[in-house]
């Protein structure tokens, strides 16, 4: 009899707390084209799998009349559930409750679910939609941020951490996503910046909109802070659900194996690539020609387009692809592309995902801006990441492999397990045009017709070095293969690398050129 009363009381309390900021605030959220925090969690997780914790947590603000305010759940929802029947931990900031602002108890709820995710070795998904620090709580809210950043760092490389930006994420708040593995943004909804437009206007007098300063496309294309861009929340959730199929649940596991499929690309693979190394093509067509079902899930599609990274499967196993993109900036390496690829290589290495590198690049991007932007230290990240990686590493050289770029793109010298080259591969210190000018400078300068002589010498150099056979004669590449054999070679080389062990000296950690 008394039980019933208690249960009804519990139900009433739950119902009230689950309203978040109440009807009006929810209406406002919907009017902005946004889903509520609870709807977002439901959209990501398996149906009816979500279990919430800390629903009755209350804030601890005692100043500025905060003690009179009730903030349901203190503006954040935490819990566990499943994706594809596998456990995950999740939190979602609730913008309808005090603008999702972060106070001490709000942060405590987030760190509680983070601690759980790390202990249970399951992925953590964080949905960010918050006006920032709850200023009324003073240093307590800063403490909260710091405790989140610390846990992001400790969990890094142990469990997958996914950040979904579905609203504002400003000031200190941006650093939690920045410390996680993958950041998802949605057009017109996501806004990320350290100092917002109003501060910039008051200090500098510069006017800029939120979208132009830190909107979804800015972070996808210009800053490289975001990994996945979507036009709607639903598209974003579909991307998350796809990503999660490619990655293992923690760093002690391998990604789930899928049924083997043949590539769907019917075209002969060599028809994709122009024989003239000066002409472009889309490297993603080559990736799709070798992956199961021609499926390639690209990461950072809009940032540093001159290198392509992403996941595909070969014989049902997840593979990380790193490939120069001749379609953009001739596929050169530069600060941004080195940065983009290096971080991805470290991700793959941390989570036991073999790496396949497709190489076709003319060298590093020349220019004062690149040199002054630190292309030396950014470029070094790529060397570091490949050398450090102990997962199976296979390289296919398609056309150009010149100079420092040849070394950087997972060459034998950095520890590649297998290096294959198409007969169109050119492995040399630089392209024939540049090399001839140096090697045959005297002959060209002294010739009666320098232009003619130059042409002749370029051809001479081409005949001698613009092929894979010099490198093959030294064992730097293992085999020159026909393009149509590429998938078969990748399958075999990855199969025989399945139990790879590559021991490194014990150390706390290396010192990569961050």
């Amino acid at each position, binding site marked *: 009899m008394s039980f019933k009363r208690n249960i009804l009381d519990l139900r009433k309390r739950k119902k009230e707390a689950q309203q978040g900021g109440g009807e009006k605030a929810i209406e406002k959220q919907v009017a902005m084209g946004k889903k509520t925090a609870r709807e977002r969690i439901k959209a990501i997780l398996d149906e009816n799998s979500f279990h919430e914790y800390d629903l009755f947590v209350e804030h601890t603000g005692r100043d500025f009349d905060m003690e009179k305010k009730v903030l349901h759940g203190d503006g954040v929802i935490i819990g566990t559930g499943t994706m594809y029947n596998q456990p995950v931990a999740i939190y979602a900031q609730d913008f309808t409750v005090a603008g999702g602002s972060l106070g001490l108890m709000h942060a405590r709820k987030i760190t509680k679910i983070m601690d759980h995710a790390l202990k249970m070795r399951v992925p953590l998904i964080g949905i960010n939609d918050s006006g920032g620090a709850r200023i009324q709580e003073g240093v307590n809210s800063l403490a909260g941020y710091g405790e989140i950043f610390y846990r992001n760092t400790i969990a890094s490389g142990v469990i997958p951490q996914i950040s979904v930006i579905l609203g504002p994420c400003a000031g200190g708040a941006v650093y939690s996503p920045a410390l996680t593995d993958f950041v998802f943004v949605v057009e017109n909804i996501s806004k990320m910046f350290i100092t917002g437009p109003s501060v910039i206007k008051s*200090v*500098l*007098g*510069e006017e800029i909109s939120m979208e132009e300063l830190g909107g979804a496309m800015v972070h996808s*294309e*210009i800053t490289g802070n975001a990994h996945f861009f979507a036009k709607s929340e639903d598209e974003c959730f579909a991307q998350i659900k796809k990503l999660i199929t490619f990655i293992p649940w923690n760093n002690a596991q391998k990604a789930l194996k899928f049924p083997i499929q043949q590539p769907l690309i019917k075209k002969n693979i060599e028809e994709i690539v122009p024989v003239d190394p*000066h*002409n*472009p093509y*889309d490297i*993603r*067509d080559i990736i799709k020609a070798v992956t199961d079902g021609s499926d390639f899930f690209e990461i950072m599609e809009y940032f*540093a*387009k*001159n290198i392509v990274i992403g996941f595909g499967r070969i014989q049902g196993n997840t593979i990380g692809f790193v490939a120069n993109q*001749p*379609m*953009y*900036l*001739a*596929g*050169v390496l530069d600060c*941004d592309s080195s940065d983009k690829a290096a971080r991805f290589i470290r991700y793959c290495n941390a989570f036991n995902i073999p790496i396949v590198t497709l190489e076709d690049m*003319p*060298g590093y*991007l*020349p*220019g*004062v*801006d690149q040199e*002054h932007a630190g292309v030396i230290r950014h470029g070094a990240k790529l060397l570091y990441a490949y050398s450090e990686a102990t997962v199976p590493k296979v390289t296919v050289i398609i056309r150009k492999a*010149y100079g420092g770029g040849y070394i950087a793109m997972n060459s034998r010298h950095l520890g590649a397990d297998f290096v294959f080259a198409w007969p169109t591969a050119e492995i040399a210190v*630089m*392209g*024939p*045009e*540049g090399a001839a*000018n140096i090697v045959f400078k005297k002959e060209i300068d002294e010739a009666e017709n320098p232009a003619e002589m130059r042409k002749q010498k370029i051809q001479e150099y081409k005949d001698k070095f613009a092929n894979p056979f010099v490198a093959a004669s030294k064992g730097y590449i293992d085999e020159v293969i026909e393009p149509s054999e590429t998938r078969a070679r990748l399958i075999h080389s990855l199969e025989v690398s399945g139990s790879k062990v590559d021991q490194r000296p014990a150390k706390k950690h290396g010192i990569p050129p961050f």
Partner: protein
Amino acid sequence: MEDNSSNYQVFVVNNAKYLTLTTTKYDRRKKYQPSDPKEVCSIIPGSVIDIYVTPGQQMKAGEVLLTLDAMKMYTKIEMPFDGVIKSIEIQKGDRIPKNTVMITLE
């Protein structure tokens, strides 16, 4: 993949010419301009608190030209070498962005 071939540009790396597309960020890069030692520029955005010199004034290296309030800090801008003030391009109270020419010297 849409056909972008009409947008291909010629891109030169080590004397070789490649056909390719460019990126927004690449197109927006600024051309390098060597800095002129005779221009005293702001290296941080801020507000001009006070100016202590006038055109024609003879100055020694290290003497203070003006005070800039930037990031809640009063920064004193000093004369880089012995010389004469040629012109003053700012006024007391101005809010200036980074890389603004404040004073020219001769």
